[in-house]
């Protein structure tokens, strides 16, 4: 069973079997952004400081930034988004994933909301 956690900035963080963490934005976030036309991803292998800007997502009308809450290194990026950024709208939790991070402290994930807590959070917005 993989663990999925959520941030107050509407990112999801999923722990994979190899210990790395896959990052994406939630359905609420893609809905707020509207039609996504461009995703700017970091280079694989680059270092990530906690809280640093990781990904820029541009919709027709808005520019959204995804910050990485945990420090680590970029293990992989979703290259398919270069030609098909709309995948983030269509499948934000699946094909629309953004990056995979090897985090310095895997236990850091525990501090974030689980799905039920995130659902309550969004309901209160």
């Amino acid at each position: 069973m993989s663990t999925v956690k959520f941030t107050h900035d509407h990112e999801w963080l999923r722990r994979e079997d190899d210990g790395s963490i896959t990052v994406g934005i939630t359905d609420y976030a893609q809905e707020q952004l509207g039609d996504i036309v461009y995703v700017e991803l970091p280079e694989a292998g680059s270092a990530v400081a906690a809280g640093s800007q990781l990904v820029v997502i541009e919709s027709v009308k808005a520019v959204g930034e995804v910050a990485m809450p945990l420090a680590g290194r970029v293990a992989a990026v979703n290259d398919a988004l270069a030609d098909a950024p709309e995948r983030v709208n269509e499948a934000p939790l699946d094909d629309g994933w953004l990056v995979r991070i090897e985090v310095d402290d895997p236990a850091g994930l525990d501090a974030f909301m689980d799905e039920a807590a995130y659902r309550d959070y969004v309901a209160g917005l």
Partner: protein
Amino acid sequence: MSRDASARETALSALHRELGARLVPFAGYLMPLQYAGIREEHLHTRAQAALFDVSHMGQIVIEGALDALETLVPGDIVGLATWRQRYTLLTNSEGGIRDDLMVTRLPDRLFVVANAACKEADHAHLVAGLGDACAVHLADDRALLALQGPAAAAVLAELDDELATLPFMAARACRLAGHDCLVNRCGYTGEDGFEIALDASGAEALARQLLADARVAPAGLGARASLRLEAGLCLSGTDIDATTSPVAADLAWTLARKYRDGSAMPRFPGAAAIMAELAAGAPRVRVGLRPDGRIPLRGGTELADTAGRSVGIVTSGSFGASAGHPVAMGYVERALAAPGTRLEVTIRERRHAVEVCALPFVPHRYYRGRGTPDP
């Protein structure tokens, strides 16, 4: 979504909410940004027909010695036939553009549509310039609906069959859904379409009747922006403003022929500067812009030549859902304005290649079936 408590609503606000619109403050009004989604609305407009609420735009009526408007605009008003419409500009004394306007000549008055953000200033400017010759009234109890797309004519013909053959840039007064309307065949999308002005009290009934047609879907300001960009049409205050001349803006075609051929003396503000620039060429001119990749170009982004020298600026940009790539326009030095010229932008510290393109990005499909459009 932030809500500006002071924002005014249009006659269709309740309908927008019922249709699930995302409402945003725009030019002092709470306006629908989107319903189903900008891309879907954009594509539907080019495939069938979309209904836009543009009631925030100014509707100004001029009565009296109508030809006096030629003292304020570079277009030919004397030569504008009754029931015909013309796109023209309010210029300033330096030859810049205060606003762009659509002017229709009716039997006893001129009907002017002005941009929402400028309408009070335009009204004051018209009153100051025409006050002795004309009565100028800015209506605040009117609505304006735009029905745009290849099916628009067939949809409206079911309400008034004469509209099917109304010439492009012509007007007709008729009753639609039981309300007196002034219909102009024009629009801001590059498609065939109509703008329907009527009393605010009739707007919802007409909008509901149009939306009941399966070919019609509501569309918001988001789709309106990407459609007009693909069509190469300027947004006043963004692509044209007090510092851009009609020549720089590639709008010299709006200068009356009688001024261009010297057969009449222009009297509009800034005429000397504009006519001189028409002869000499503007230092910077408006062009279409397309990045090589998918990165959207946004207004305010500086344009550089391939040596890194600043040569211009992007004024507006979006993703062209029909073009299938980002679309933008901006101003560049005249020597670099030819389509195919390679430029660069720097966005978030990365350089991206941009090419100058001919406008429009998507060919206009205006109605050419009957009548001769005004030059």
